[in-house]
């Protein structure tokens, strides 16, 4: 498995900008006195000299004196660059085909399958002990958009039959997306048949988004009782999709 080690959020640390504050450089201007000069010539020479000294002084001040500290203009960069990276260093995974990365909680999930474009994570619900699964796949954005990516991923799930949109409006996924980009989302229901031939209900939640280059889709699958907004499955799925870093950055 080409599973990376723990992510290092510090790798993204940026260096502080140089201080904008400079020390004030003091200086003195002294009048230069030549020989004794008289009359109008003296006055002209004095005024000329005075202006020259002033000019030199201004030039010196302009060169060596500190500039006034620039004010931070509203909503113009006035500090280190800012971007988003997850706080918690979880297990890092990178798509060898598309270059996007994600993090998943290694204590909750293990990689069951992985491909150049995505992976399948499996875990267990802590309350029921049931298996819970998160599938993530990607495609070139020029070929597949977010909605289509969800459809494709759902259609490639084996073992779930009678797949349909969840009719309960209470289960609708509003504002679905990946990696802090809005895209598509939806809730689905299906029927699962065990090797013993017993059918039972499964719930699926899907999200997808694109950065214009790559489209990433995620489907979380669990027993109906192990899904929903307060379930571990959905909490972890949210964290995973929020951790997606697009290859071109934000």
């Amino acid at each position, binding site marked *: 498995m080409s599973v990376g080690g723990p992510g*290092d*959020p510090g*790798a*993204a640390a940026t260096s502080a900008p140089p201080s904008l504050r400079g020390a004030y450089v003091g200086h003195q201007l002294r009048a230069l006195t030549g020989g004794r000069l008289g009359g109008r010539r003296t006055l002209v020479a004095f005024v000329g000299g005075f202006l020259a000294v002033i000019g030199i002084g201004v030039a010196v001040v302009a060169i060596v004196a500190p500039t006034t*500290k620039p*004010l*931070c*203009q*509203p*909503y113009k960069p006035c*500090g280190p660059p*800012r*971007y*988003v990276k997850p*706080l*918690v260093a979880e297990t890092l995974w990178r798509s060898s085909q598309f270059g996007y990365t994600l993090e998943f909680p290694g*204590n*909750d*999930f*293990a*990689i069951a*399958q992985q491909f150049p474009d995505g992976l*399948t994570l*499996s*875990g*267990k*619900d802590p*309350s*029921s002990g*049931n*298996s819970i*699964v998160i599938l993530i796949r990607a495609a070139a954005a020029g070929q597949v958009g977010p909605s289509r990516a969800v459809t494709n991923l759902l259609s490639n*799930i*084996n073992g*779930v039959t009678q797949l349909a949109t969840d009719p309960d409006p*209470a289960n*609708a*996924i*509003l*504002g679905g997306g990946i990696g*802090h980009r*809005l895209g598509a*989302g939806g809730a689905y229901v299906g029927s*699962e048949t*065990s*090797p*013993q031939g017993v059918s*039972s*209900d499964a719930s699926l939640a899907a999200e997808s988004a694109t950065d214009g280059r790559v489209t990433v889709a995620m489907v979380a699958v*669990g*027993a*109906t*009782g192990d899904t929903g*907004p*307060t379930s*571990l499955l*959905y909490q972890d799925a*949210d964290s995973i999709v*929020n951790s997606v870093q697009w290859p071109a950055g*934000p």
Partner: protein
Amino acid sequence: MNGSTRSRGRVVAAALALALLATTGVLAFSTGRSARRVALSARLLGPTEANQSINFSLVLRLPGERKLQQLLAAVYDPRSPQYHHFIDARMFGDRFGLSNAALASVRRVLSAAGVQITGEYPQRTAIDARAPAAVVDRLFATRLLEYVARDGRRFHEPQQPAVVPMQLRGAVTAVAGLNGRYLPFPSDVPANGLRPPDTRLVYDINPLYSHGIEGQGEKIGVMSFSQFSQSDLDAFDQQFGLPAFTPQVASVSDLGPSTDTSQDGEGEAMLDLEVVHEVAPQAQVIDYNAPWSTTTTDYSSDTMSRLVDKIVADGQVNVVNVSYGICEQLSSSADIQRSENSFASAALHGISLFVATQDAGAYACQRAKSDAHELSVSYPSSSPNVIAVGGTSLSVGANDQYVGEAPWESALEYAGGGGGLSTLFAKPSWQQALGVSNRYSNGKRELPDISADADPATGWTIVQGGQLITNIGGTSAAAPFWTGSMALIDQYARQQGIRQGIGGVAGDVDPMLYAIASSPQAFPPFHDITYGTNRYYPATVGWDFATGLGSPDVWNLARDVASYLKSHRK
């Protein structure tokens, strides 16, 4: 989970494992996380017992309403001679409230009808009262019905809206507190989070501490609807080397303090108190506490307003945290009328109320009604007289230094930082900054004003129930963080020689925050968040519906505030 469901779940599990994985993998066990649902529906029990005691309040007419609005605008307009000339509760009542004669008349009518007056306030915004259900039914031409919610909470609700009787219409505008179906609820989402040292570093608080600014002399109000655990506060202080503190409890006299010791209720109280304390460790904290119990009917749905009225009447605190709310569409209009009177008096007193925008992103109603899909915002955060605090997801570097933030968005959990357009209130004149006028704008109040870390995945560390709980979030973590920070900024401004008669140095700080954001500053006061969404609205350059003006660099903001106030001193 019953046996049948569990069995079915296991079948699904086996099938999923076989069909989906088709491979062997190490199955990891997760740690449990607490979960909570809000009651969505209720069962009618029947008419409320005739002799059941009902708490409610009468919203008093403010004859000086027009002048009140003019003064509110003037007090927060730097060009006005009235700028930051705050008035106390009694002066508010004298200038804008009913006359003594009118109040006496109201008392006579109520007494004759069998209504007991349980509370009055010098600001004359409302009268608290109690009466048997039969009296309420008769006096207000309604019929109270009793319900039990899915979570077991009992409440009453008028069958039809209460009508103010003719003899009171000159003095009373509405009857509040009668509808308990939808009550504001806490905004926390239980889930190695932000410890106090991290918070100080990430949001740049340490330089204030270096200047001796730790909240000394400041009094912070925290609105609570459950009890808190002193032993948890002590454990939190010991864990992080903070000074010990015991909040002073102040309750609404006729209702008394809350008796709620439920895990959810206490969790909110502990989060609010501990976050406020970790930011401003030397500040005195007053826990304004009232019952909002799930185990008793001895409450009133206008309890929040009662607490605000008490806070204003007491005049002790300058900054207040409110981590409760509910979407506008589910709020009782009578309760909102009552609250708006209270918030106006607080703003004129120079009090800042930091209110959480709730945790459902752009869909505030979804938290209370999971099938409510309309864009919505929560009340009271939408009030023009409070500061609406939204939520972010925080990123830090290897040494806990600030790296960046995105809006908090967790679609599968129906969660995110609250933000959007109010349906009730017009956009206040001071709400101006780059980004405020945008393609979604419609002339209504826009939320949130500001934000801070609220994503449980990047969240806060507290002690509750004797346990160190990591990664607790919600905008009700962001709100107390801002409340504590503003107490520090208030102290810093005073240290810089800025004085006020009453209230905080900047009063309701909202207009000032927008003014600071809109003009060049010596120090960048806000982290502008430009990437991500709150499940609908995008974060953009400048103000946005996902994160408002952004999160603070507290030290920078403190210096900008002091500079702003000095330059606008009257």
